């Protein structure tokens, strides 16, 4: 079953220790060759293992809208991250990540993922992320204005404060928040804040990824589970 050819894997992870760990695990596996590298050159590596923001940055310039002849140049990216929000996983998959592994997953899953995607497998999710995706509710489909309001709400702003910052009336903020409540089936604003944090529903400022990849562009992933 093992491929006759050595699979080359480039590790692009921001954390030096994790990067070293990934290389260590890859090098122990037969038929897999790990290399560390800053600039991802897809011609020399079969797979790229990256953290969330770097993985998405690699996938961003060549999105799904590209003509088919460019599709071959999209790197095969496996993301290794701590981000366990269900929308964060969906967002990565929608952007074309081929694998998603949480940091608490078994290192064996990394090797499985590398072999699976190089053998033509579509998507590899670690066991935990499969569970998270299955448990998650339906996509919330927020409008961009609702997302704006959510960013302030999560930070603890009151309606008047949000109204001031967005230059709209407090009444409009109120009606947006009741729509958000309905979409999330939440009863209070603190419950909204909890759900947003837990499910990773909106791209907060600390996320390096582009904002236009928000929840409203959600595509239901064809999840391949293991």
């Amino acid at each position, binding site marked *: 079953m093992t491929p006759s050819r050595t699979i080359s894997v480039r590790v692009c992870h921001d954390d*030096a220790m*994790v990067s070293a760990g990934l290389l260590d695990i890859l090098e122990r596996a037969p038929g897999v060759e790990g290399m560390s590298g800053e600039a991802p050159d897809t011609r020399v590596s079969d797979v790229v293992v990256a953290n969330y923001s770097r993985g998405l940055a690699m996938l961003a310039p060549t999105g799904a809208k590209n003509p088919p002849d460019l599709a071959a140049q999209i790197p095969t990216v496996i993301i290794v991250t701590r981000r366990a929000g269900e929308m964060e996983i969906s967002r990565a998959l929608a952007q074309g990540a081929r694998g998603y592994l949480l940091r*608490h997953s*078994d290192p064996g899953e990394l090797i499985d993922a590398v072999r699976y995607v190089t053998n033509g497998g579509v998507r590899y999710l670690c066991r935990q992320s499969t569970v*998270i995706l299955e448990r998650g509710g339906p996509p919330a489909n927020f409008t961009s204005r609702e997302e704006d309001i959510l960013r302030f709400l999560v930070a603890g702003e009151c309606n008047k404060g949000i109204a001031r910052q967005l230059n709209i009336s407090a009444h409009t903020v109120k009606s947006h928040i009741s729509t958000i409540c309905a979409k999330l089936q939440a009863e209070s604003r603190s419950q909204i804040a909890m759900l947003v*944090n837990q499910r990773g529903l909106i791209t907060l400022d600390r996320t390096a990824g582009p904002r236009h990849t928000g929840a409203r562009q959600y595509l239901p992933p064809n999840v391949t589970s293991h």
Partner: protein
Amino acid sequence: MQSQVQNRATHVRIDHPDRYLACGIRALLRAHGNYEVSVCCDPAGEVAHPDLVLIDYDTLFSAGFILQRQAQAQAKGYARGRPQPRVMVVADRCTSWQVRKAIDAGVMSYLTENCSAEEMLAALRTVALGQRYFPVAVAQQLADSLAIHAPTHRELAVLNLLADGLNNRAISQQLSIGEGTVKTHVKALFNKLQVPSRTAAVAAAQRLGMLSRAAGGMAMGAGRSLAA
């Protein structure tokens, strides 16, 4: 004194649940200097009496780890002049509250997982000599933590339920206390965190690292961590 430490290999046990990180630290230590390393997920090369134990923040307050420390403190080997292993935390983030709690719990060093290899080695060398090591960013957080009025145990319990989106009545039922008592706790929290509202209190608590990850995170089967 110093030469003694240099001659004998430092025994390090990595009990970190993040195995990618654990393998990275092991690879680093094997490549540099005089270390015997064992990783919890790999029974080969188990170090019986480690000098140093590397764990993550959550492990520090897990029942298993606390019991293990108590057992070590009572074991004969340690009573005969062998010191308890020194504990180092490698955490996914450093917030002022977490740093303070970790130091209260007796850790010798607190590193973040995005630290450089040089920093990791420097920390290990320092701690092996019996001194504490804190990177600048962590020391700043520690200084900040001294400015916080620490919430009481009960206030923290209320705060965690608040973060799950519960209202006062639901919190009072969960903790078997009166609704008025919950209100008092919430007000005290607003004062201590210097915030005007419940959601702001949760946002501040999250920034400071006061929320236990078991709250909420467990219910959804997902961590609350926001790190890269």
